[in-house]
């Protein structure tokens, strides 16, 4: 039951994009096509899961430990360490992706390295730390937060692909209409409030 709450909460109720408003940059940036959005969400799920696991481990075992009778509290290093880990992860993904799927790499463009500074990834690490989740809980939470991001960007990209064929007034073409759509989407997600 606890895990159900954790997952439903991460995917629907506290959706990273549509409820917490984190990770908006790639949400808007790579949602023009469903295929690239799926590639991006794959990368984000991967990074968030791994980053959650590693940062939770670091937070629990590396930032607070006792050595030779002295207790060290390195909490001030938290952000620094988290960014280090995330940056390294993203770097690895980038290298792998460039080799395995050059087309996707091209399509994701600048947004791939930008996952490093993606507030969603750092956000999930910080939220984990704040809630003091165990490594397993943090991994699950991270993974499903990523799934939540994936769900949001998948819905959004399919809507945008449809909107591309619509004929909005000139002033609303492109990003404005996308932002309005994202707003209405967030409204729909409001309905899930209180599920857990």
């Amino acid at each position, binding site marked *: 039951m606890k895990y159900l709450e954790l997952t439903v909460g991460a995917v629907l109720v506290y959706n990273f994009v549509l409820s917490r408003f984190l990770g908006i940059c790639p949400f808007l940036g790579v949602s023009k096509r469903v295929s690239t959005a799926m590639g991006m969400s794959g990368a984000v799920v991967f990074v968030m899961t791994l980053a959650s696991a590693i940062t939770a481990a670091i937070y629990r075992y590396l930032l607070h430990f006792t050595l030779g009778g*002295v207790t*060290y509290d390195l909490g001030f290093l938290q952000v*620094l360490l988290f960014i*280090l*880990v995330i940056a390294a992860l993203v770097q690895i993904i980038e*290298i792998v992706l460039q*080799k395995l799927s050059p087309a996707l790499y*091209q399509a994701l463009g600048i947004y791939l390295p930008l996952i490093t500074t993606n507030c969603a990834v750092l956000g999930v690490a910080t939220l984990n730390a704040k809630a003091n989740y165990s490594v397993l809980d943090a991994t699950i939470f991270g993974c499903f937060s990523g799934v939540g991001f994936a769900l949001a960007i998948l819905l959004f990209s399919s809507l945008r692909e449809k909107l591309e064929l619509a004929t909005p007034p000139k002033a609303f073409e492109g990003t404005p209409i996308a932002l309005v759509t994202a707003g209405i989407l967030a409204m729909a997600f409001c309905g899930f409030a209180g599920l857990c």
Partner: protein
Amino acid sequence: MSGLIVSALVMGVLALVLGTAIGIFVKFFKVKSDPRVELVLELLPGANCGGCGCAGCADFAKAVASGKLQPNRCPVSSREQVNAIAFALGVDPGEGFARRAVVCCSGDKYQTQMRKFYNGAIDCAAANMIGGGPKGCRYGCIGMGNCAHACPFGAIEVINSLAVVHQELCVGCGKCVTACPRGVIKLVPANSSAHVYCNSPEKGATKRSLCHGGCIGCGKCERAYPDQFTKTGFLASVNYEAEKLPGAEEIEAIKCPTGALASEAGHYESEKNAGKGENK
């Protein structure tokens, strides 16, 4: 003090581990890429118009970096930008290549007879498949703006059912040329300023019955300036390879009887003002 050392140590060890991991991945997954492609891509305008003949700027950058094409093939880049690319790669920028598009038709809805009632999709290609749209002439501009939609630079305006190119915005990418189902749009040297605004090879009398703006092949221009104009059948054309391209004074001197031969500015003005007199 020990806190400082421990934190430095923690950071250091972590950095080392992660650095090693990245190093290992690089070893297995590294893709060789030409850094010059990135460089050229950065210097290109990024309009992805396809005017160079490649599929987008990235393709063109690859072609330039590998020496297949010369940097000046990009119609959008200014001379300075082309030179910058050439300088960065250490290659020859290539001869001047600038072109502009011209819609060779003056049959706006006041000039040409709107003889066919057309009912259907507002799209030149679609209209062309059904009896050729609302205008009588089979060779002229249909005026539903496929070229205007295709133009990435917003350089084409449809005035009174006739597409007119704004020369100051046109870069000569040629997208409109492919978009036009009739082949009315031609690419001409950028420094030319006078054109024959007619595309119909039909007989003068037939043309005259369909459109007041068409070239009737009177040959006045060819007689006056044989180097700069050629007449084939009933259609005069500007000889764009001539030493000196015709300008305002030649136009003034010839006084084309139908106004098919006009300077760019004059053509635009007359289209802009067409029909205003009739409304009054």
